């Protein structure tokens, strides 16, 4: 145990996700030895992020305004929505430069064993967005794991009667890898989701 504020800092850092007691101690001593201006900048950013950053009223993504940058952008395709679990998934998809529509961030995935059901996610908000008739296609990009697949099934069943085009991101082989190293589940999905090669 350290004295007073040093121990307080270690305790607070230790509460962050992925930071254990040893890492917390290392970061705390890094802060103690760092230039005061650097520490002040870090403290200001921490305060600023809590004050300025909100969740977009339309899609639920992190934003510094009422709406996020993507929802405000008039060049985006208003007819397509991509549904993701978390804001970090939006960043991952934006990196591909393949998608020009808008997003809807659910805030997680359905996991009854963890006590997370459909009402705990932003599904009602999604249904409200779909109700105005502008959107014609929905791409479900939840994680390719059990909870993500169950969420996709639930959404597809809910949205099916609305007559929209609903698709799910493909699963399969990673680009640049060798086929022999693929696990049987991924390889099986790659087979079931195979596409015709055009001449």
């Amino acid at each position: 145990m350290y004295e007073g504020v040093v121990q307080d800092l270690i305790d607070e850092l230790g509460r962050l996700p992925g930071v254990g007691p040893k890492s917390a101690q290392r970061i705390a001593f890094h802060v103690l030895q760092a230039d005061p201006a650097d520490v002040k900048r870090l403290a200001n950013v921490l305060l600023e992020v809590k004050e300025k950053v909100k969740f977009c009223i339309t899609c639920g993504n992190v934003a510094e305004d009422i709406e996020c940058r993507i929802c405000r952008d008039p060049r985006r395709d208003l007819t397509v929505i991509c549904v993701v679990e978390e804001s970090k998934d939006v960043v991952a998809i934006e990196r591909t430069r393949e998608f020009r529509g808008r997003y809807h961030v659910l805030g997680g995935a359905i996991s009854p064993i963890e006590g997370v059901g459909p009402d705990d996610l932003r599904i009602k908000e999604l249904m409200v967005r779909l109700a105005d008739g502008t959107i014609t296609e929905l791409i479900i990009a939840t994680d390719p794991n059990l909870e993500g697949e169950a969420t996709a099934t639930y959404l597809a069943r809910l949205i099916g009667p609305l007559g929209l085009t609903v698709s799910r991101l493909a699963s399969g082989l990673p680009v640049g890898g060798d086929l022999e190293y693929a696990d049987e589940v991924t390889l099986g999905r790659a087979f079931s989701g195979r596409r015709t090669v055009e001449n």
Partner: protein
Amino acid sequence: MLRAQKLGEADRIVTLLTRDHGRVRAVAKGVRKTSSRIGARLEPFSHVDVQFYEGRTLDGVSQVEILSSYGAALVGDYSRYTAGQAMLETAERLTAEEREPTVQQYLLLVGGLRALVTNEHDPGLILDSYLVRSLAVAGWAPSFDACARCGVTGPHSAFNVAAGGALCTEDRLPGSAAPAVETFTLLGALLAGDWHTADASQSRARREASGLIAAYLNWQLERGLRSLPFVERNGA
């Protein structure tokens, strides 16, 4: 495999119910990365052959081979998925001690998941049958025929979760439920695995039976299952 919880950047803590070593928690490193070779095999509902290495606090997973992947079949049907999740949570809660061999719980869970996947019975009935049978294996078998207090053979018309099941007229306690005869018949069939009788039951009896089983389970576990309120029951 019962459960997966995120750990750090790309790891997971996985909980498995094993045939010989009971419930085991272990760290699966890097399984959240898309390049992981074992990530797809280590999903809840997977029936796997797994090898662990000894760790300081938790063991680590070194190899995984799939025996049966029930998850892929269950996620396509939301009611079966939610029923399966309740089964996994029950198995975890009824095996309180880690590494205490529970072969019967293991076999019951594998059989229950297989029944869910084969789609031969209503998922709500499979879940309720699993719940009463897993309670029985854990030593909390409810009595649906004989009076739970005096042992006199029924049929009886009262059910009390605190007393342990059916009660005769003499032993009936205040606050006991009064299920229909058909409900008692269904409860007995679910405990015995009499699917002919269970499949022929009416929705009213199924609804009443599932309510009594949930109440009995919550009483025995002291803290209700998180997943049970999310179970979607067909026609119930």
